[in-house]
């Protein structure tokens, strides 16, 4: 392990910013997964496959001249429909959370095969005008694609939080997640809510996918590269909590970035995950 180097202030602050950006993406990717796990009791591995499928669709449309952000207008409703449709199909079967892992793993394989057959296993990078743009705030560089991701992540997380906290729908969803029979007795239409929720989670995945396409290079096998760290953000942030994945993801991203700034980057995963373990062991109540 190379020695610690004392980073300059600008290096440190830029690294923290970099960590916030990647953490925001973790959070955005994790949001749909967290809601699905916490409120629908479905551990949706296919969430990642949906994100990548959306990313590829964005890439495809943008390569034909459409502005990547505008592709959201087509992609989000499409994935909402896919998510709700799948929920409708699956709802008639008795699925436990860990069964759903198996189910969605199969689905992931299907989607990955679809992506590979259409776009081949090649790496695809979206070249957009956004990639060229950046701001400078003091000494800090703020690239636009990452900023878009951050803004979307925060805005959507807050919006979801507000819906869950302050609207009847949100209360109904949370009630149904806690005790379905009682919620039904109180008139909560669980079937409709479940469709709505599943559609929303898929839509959230697709938004994350578009952000992914803006900043990262795509390959079918990359679907699996994100599972570990996003699951970590989801579990750490607390299932079904709208702001959880964002906060946890940021924590993970920043801890990794700071490690990479001060010492050998190959130690970064150890630092972030050790931090996670320490947080869990010392204060599990906070995370639960």
């Amino acid at each position: 392990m190379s020695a610690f180097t004392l980073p300059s202030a600008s290096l440190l602050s830029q690294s923290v910013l970099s960590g916030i950006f990647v953490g925001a993406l973790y959070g955005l990717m994790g949001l749909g997964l967290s809601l699905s796990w916490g409120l629908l009791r479905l551990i949706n591995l296919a969430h990642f496959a949906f994100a990548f499928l959306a990313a590829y669709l964005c890439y495809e449309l943008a390569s034909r001249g459409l502005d990547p952000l505008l592709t959201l207008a087509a992609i989000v409703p499409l994935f909402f429909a896919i998510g709700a449709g799948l929920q409708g199909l699956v709802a008639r079967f008795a699925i436990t959370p860990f069964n759903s892992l198996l189910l969605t793993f199969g689905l992931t394989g299907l989607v990955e095969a679809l992506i590979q057959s259409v776009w081949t296993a090649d790496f695809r990078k979206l070249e957009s005008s956004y990639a060229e743009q950046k701001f400078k705030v003091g000494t800090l560089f703020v690239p636009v694609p990452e900023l878009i991701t951050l803004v979307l992540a925060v805005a959507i997380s807050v919006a979801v939080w507000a819906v869950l906290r302050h609207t009847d729908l949100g209360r109904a969803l949370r009630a149904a997640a806690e005790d379905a029979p009682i919620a039904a007795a109180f008139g909560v239409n669980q079937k409709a809510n479940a469709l709505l929720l599943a559609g929303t989670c898929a839509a959230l995945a697709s938004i994350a996918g578009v952000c992914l396409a803006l900043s990262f290079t795509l390959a079918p096998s990359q679907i699996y590269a994100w599972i570990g760290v996003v699951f970590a953000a989801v579990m750490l942030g607390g299932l079904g909590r709208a702001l959880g994945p964002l906060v946890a993801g940021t924590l993970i991203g920043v801890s990794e970035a700071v490690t990479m700034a001060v010492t050998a980057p190959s130690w970064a995963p150890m630092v972030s995950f050790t931090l996670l373990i320490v947080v869990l062991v010392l204060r599990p109540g906070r995370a639960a």
Partner: protein
Amino acid sequence: MKTFRSTRRGALVAALATVLGAIALPAATQTAAAPVRIGSTLALTGPLSATAQIHRIVGEIYVEQLNKRGGLLGRPVEWIVKDDQSKPDLARTLYEQLVTADKVDLLIGPYATGAILSAMGVAQRYNKVLVHHTLGIPALAKYDMQFPAWSLGSDPATTVPNTIFDALAAGPKPPKTVAVVTNKFPSIQFMTAGAREVMKKRGLTEVLFLEWDFGNRDFGPIANRVKDAKPDFVWVGAIGLDGNLLLDAMKKLDYVPPQHFYLYPAPGPLVSLPEAKNALSVTIFEDQPPFTSAPGAAEFVKLYRERATKAGLADPSVETQAAASYTAWQILEAGVVATKSLDDKAIATWLKANKVDTLQGKLRFDGLGNFGDDLMRVKQVQNGHWVVVWPKEVTSGGAKLIAP
């Protein structure tokens, strides 16, 4: 008149017989001769599939061309390829299937070091010769009857960096300070370690050394540290997309390294990246003279471009991976033809003692680990294309290393 007519009739009959014979004989030979079966696996699904798909196309082209030329030993050639799903343990099992159950005549290598080593183990147990395309760590190739198609030489960690630094020294701005950043992937890491030694010996100053994990997503802090180190030259031990991600991150910081080198990048994505201007890399073959004057090269390059485009590959030009793949087949064919047999031991013995004419030139296999010469050349991204810039003998059109 009788003589003339009978002569003409005779000639007619003879001609007819020849024609019929010409048609019938190959047919007869074909139905009589069983195909020569060559077996291998490739990572057709999984993380390695992006590169393995290149090997598939090349293999198909080669076998087609081979069969057009009459096959091997007068028999048609059949390539049995299986999907090892990017898993070395499955590669091992499938190679065993090829040898013990499918009973193929010959083997050829899979893609990527892990799978190649698994295949090598199987080949060793069954005394099969194994020609492989892209083994990145020559020191691990301990089997006697394995032959590399990738001309790294037996000590690439020393020879390749030397080539690069020779090129830089002969260029307009020989660097004095170097930032070394590398992936910890096995075939990359040892090359970078060798590069650092070479740098020391050549009196260059290392201003930064960083390693990152395979699968790292956030290159921001790394790019930042490179920028802060203000090196003349950045050595990037990259594989796949690392180069792109790093350049992206550097661009976001308004930083362009003065001179930069990428070890094994995914060539297509890198060359099309605007920030990759003047990036250096290494290659054994490029789609340009004088490489295309090698026997068979021009036709292969054309065919590959057609097939790759049809298959939807983003970058349809031939470079190291495709060339090494084609070379492997050439080596195997040469061995079979020269020994007039499918006997693995005979082929191996012949290969060790002789040179084979390939896309990369005349290759020898008598060095350590059956590696021969280091034929890695330096190429550079110039105007959105890869241009070979060193050594001078393999450049064309006055191409030179550019340093801004």
